């Protein structure tokens, strides 16, 4: 029984990794960190992740390769790119490879949360694509939540519950 949304954060900036992990954990996510691409691919072998936050420029395997690998191996994982390399070309390439979102560093934390929420929502819609009942439930649940800025987390919680109920 899955209790929390599983996040995988892949970034070579260790200082960043620690802090972002702590902050997301404080907000009720289950966070795993990986400081390079190989560790990330290792991690996804043993655990299912809902959403991955991925840096592009990394030594060894770079973000593009990790993204390609994740999307190939894990059907429902959504990937949000977090990078300081904010070129339009890179964003375009990532979206072609199936990344859900593209955030350039530095970003606002609320932006990240909102992106995670949207990504999770998308994940659920894809997951229940052939299950009209569940899809209806997702929409109903989403409709019941007030549309306010700080509500992203609440909404996520609702969605998570829905996902867990199904399991």
């Amino acid at each position, binding site marked *: 029984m899955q209790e929390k949304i599983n996040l995988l954060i892949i970034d070579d*900036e260790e*200082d960043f990794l620690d*802090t972002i992990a702590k*902050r997301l954990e*404080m907000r009720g996510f289950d966070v795993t960190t990986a400081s390079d691409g190989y560790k990330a691919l290792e991690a996804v072998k043993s655990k299912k992740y809902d959403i991955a936050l991925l840096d592009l420029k990394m030594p*060894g395997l770079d973000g593009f390769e990790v993204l390609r690998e994740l999307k190939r191996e894990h059907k429902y994982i959504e990937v949000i790119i977090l990078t*300081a390399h904010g070129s339009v070309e890179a964003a375009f390439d990532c979206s072609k490879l199936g990344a859900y979102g593209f955030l350039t560093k*530095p*970003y606002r*934390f609320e932006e990240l949360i909102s992106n995670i929420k949207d990504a999770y929502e998308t994940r659920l819609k894809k997951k229940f694509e052939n299950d009209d009942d569940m899809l209806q439930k997702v929409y109903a649940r989403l409709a019941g939540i007030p549309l306010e800025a700080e509500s992203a987390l609440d909404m996520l919680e609702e969605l998570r519950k829905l996902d867990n109920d199904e399991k």
Partner: protein
Amino acid sequence: MNETNDNPLKDKRYRELRRQYLVKLILAYIAPSLILIVFFIYQYISLAHAGQVQHLLSVAESQSKILDIFLKERVGNLINLIDTSFTVAGHNAEEVKNYYDDLKRNSGSFIDVGFFYGSGIQENYYGPESFLVNRDYSSEEWFKKLLAQKKRYTITDIYPGLRNKPHFTIGVKKIAGSRTHVVKSSLDPEKIYGYLTAAEKSMDVKISIVNREGEYQLPHVSGRAVSRDFFRLNKENSSKGIVKKVKGENGSLFAWCLLTETDWAVIVAPDRPVTLKSIFIEYCNVISASFFILVVLCVVVFFRSKTMVIDEYNKDLVKSQLEQASKLATIGELSAGIAHEIGNPLNIIANEVGMMQDYADPSFKTGMTLQDMEPHFQKILNSVFRCKDITRKLLTFVRSDKIHLKECDINNVLDDLLDGFFEKELSLKNIELIRNYKAGNSKVKIDANQISQVIVNLITNAADAIEKNGTITIGTEMKNNCVSISVTDTGSGISQEKIDKIFIPFFTTKPAGKGTGLGLSVSYGIVENHGGRIKVESIPGKGSIFTVELPSA
């Protein structure tokens, strides 16, 4: 380049350049043309001259032949007369007149006829000057000569004689036993001369006849036509020739031909004397054509030098624009890197601040104190100084147009450049940067900013050639008063056909949008400005070595 300079020819530098081009073009175009023109005119004139000489010679020859034949005939007339009229007793007056009439029928040039019967007294005479009867000729030169010689006839020079009318005398003899009979006749040279000059061939020439002494015979004027030298000069028995006299007011050129019958020569000179002026008039077309060519060439050279200077100006303009573009391109490439390098620490700062906001947020109930936040403060500070470091490195790239040479240690310059900045960048691509400094404490006088830019360009290229996983070795070495900096990579290498082009501006092998093709050309320029050189060796598939050699301080 001066901003206000819209007409390059006004600029002193370009004026000087144009002067140089003019001199070069004149040397390259006009000088050879001038030499050719002079050569051809000379050839043409000497050819025409040779033709003229040939003409003169042939006229002289033919006219002397005619004269010879004429004289031979006249001699023949007289010999015939003496042979048929031979008598010891002499002739009566009527017989003499009949002989004279016979002669006159043969040629109108006969003036008179005289008979000598063994003595020097002209015993019989018929002609206009009747006082010549019984005149004693025995002391006359021609008479003595005729008696002394074996030949049966003699021909005198033309002389005014007693009659004061120019004439010449032919004397013939017949030896009968102990007595020698002589018949003499005077002839009118004007008749001969009219005959010679009437020929069509002799229209454009002046014909004269001279004796051994070079004195005029025909036309009969007193004085010498030519010096006697030309007779003497031709001791090789040639009977004709050409005389070119440099001095002398007329007849500086003439052909001569000796007669066989007498010691006369026919002299044929051009109608007009050959002078510089006459040459100019005669070859006016050739000279004016040459002059026209020269004028055209001058105009061409004038405008060509102008366009060359303008080309040069445009080239300079493009070059300066290229340098500007290259600078911009370098900044463009840099700023992408900078965005990444600065984005990350900024992101860390944002996150740490967010973390502290979270701690301060009562809803999270963390119960953290300020002391607990110390590691976060530290992370923020670290990030701030990381940014500062990047801006400091950035300043290295602010390149100025002028070279500011300063003595420095090349190894330190490289260390300053490589420390942190490249290592981070390269580690992302799994490229190992190896420093192999063999030049210990090697001082060079360089503009460190510019040389740094060269090295940055070389390392950037090396990294692009490797793409991923490899090594870049930066080496320094002292070699014959030169400090050489080598950048060796284990990348894809450069093929033979590309290696010649790599220093050409805008030549790039990188995908569109990635490289500007300016890095190496600018680097080349910088190294040249330092009085050094840049070399490249490459093995396709194995890697490349770029070597920058700088004169050591």
